[in-house]
């Protein structure tokens, strides 16, 4: 059986949304920062052996926005899962995390939201522990697009949850 799911990545500018997707889809990483304009669409097929299902993840990489209310709402329609990305080294990207998540919940009820702190390779575990209060209890996973740490896990967990 094959199913297709739409996943949308959101977050501020430069938090590494495109890098996370490239790491997952192409297993590549570049230090060069290229700003995403509008939307970029990627696709990756993964198999969930337990269910014997092929999941086609159609991933929408939306342009970064410092205020989520400026996001083009039509891009959010029909989304099966959101991934909200922030940068663990830049407080501006997670200071309004709660209100941004609430906005998403309000606009797309019943759509799961995974909150991810990217660039964990740039900080120590002690730093993450010390700042966990600032990141809020909403964070589901700390990942690194640069090293690839937990990137596959993020998407495969999501795919599994979506077909349950």
């Amino acid at each position: 059986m094959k199913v297709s799911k739409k996943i949308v990545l959101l977050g501020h500018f430069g938090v590494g949304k495109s890098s996370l997707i490239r790491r997952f889809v192409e297993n590549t990483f570049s230090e060069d920062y290229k700003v995403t304009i509008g939307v970029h669409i990627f696709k990756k097929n993964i198999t969930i052996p337990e269910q014997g299902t092929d999941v086609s993840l159609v991933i929408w990489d939306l342009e970064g926005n410092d205020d989520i209310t400026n996001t083009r709402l039509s891009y959010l329609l029909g989304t099966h899962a959101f991934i909200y990305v922030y940068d663990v080294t830049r407080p501006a990207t997670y200071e309004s995390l709660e209100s941004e998540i609430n906005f998403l919940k309000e606009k797309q009820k019943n759509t799961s939201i995974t909150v991810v702190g990217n660039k964990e390779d740039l900080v120590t575990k002690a730093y993450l522990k010390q700042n966990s209060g600032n990141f809020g209890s909403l964070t589901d996973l700390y990942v690194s697009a640069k090293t690839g740490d937990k990137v596959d896990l993020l998407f495969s967990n999501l795919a599994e949850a979506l077909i349950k």
Partner: protein
Amino acid sequence: MNQDERLSILKDILLTDEREYAQKVEEKLRVVEDVINKQNQLSERVNPIIEQKLNDFILEIPKTLGPSITEALKTEIKNSQDAVVEALFPIIGKMIKKYVQQEMQILSEQINAKMNSAFTFEGLKRKFKSKKTGVSEGDLILQELSQPKIDQIMVIEKGSGIIISEYSKTQSIDEDMVSGMLTAIKSFAEDAFEKDNQELQYIEYDSFHIHLQNFSAYYIAVIISGPYNVVFKSKLEDKLLDFAQNYINKEDIKDTDSFSKKLKLFFE
């Protein structure tokens, strides 16, 4: 033994080693002189070094000279556009001529094939139509040959852009990516114009025309090659509306297999 003889013996004793050494140095110098002065002998020694250096230089060209050459070419082309056009014109002209000749040959072969079928049912039907409408048989053949062709049909869920069903005779595109991108373009255009109840209906891409037929829960994207005109658009719209109204129900939207079967049956 006088003083001179004694001095000579002393010299012999003291300077024998130095003399031998001086002789050896002299000999080596002669060999070096020979090598330098005789071209073939010098080549034997120096050529491998030059060759190695040249090889290294060739390998280094893309890195060291590449950007400068590209920059110089860009500037040169920019500064002498007329000269570039003059140089390229005959080549491009020949290419276009060849392409047109090839296309004309294909057209001529197709017309011949149609003419050969003059006594078939299709041919007789054309003759009858020509007499009835007053349009020459040749024009009718040309009209038949320049018919638009449906290459692919995609039924796409509105909003998500997820493909519900797809039909094509030749699989050539990644329909998941295309349906996502079409939906993003559609969403952007419809949002940007900020007018209610208006929807994107048509996109042109190279020689392809993408007709978008909107319904409430989904839209159908039809990829067409060949001339796309108002008559064809109207016929296509009628066909798509007929399909949506009379063949598709709510359950089919959830059951992609059933949708695909119906789509194939209807358009094949």
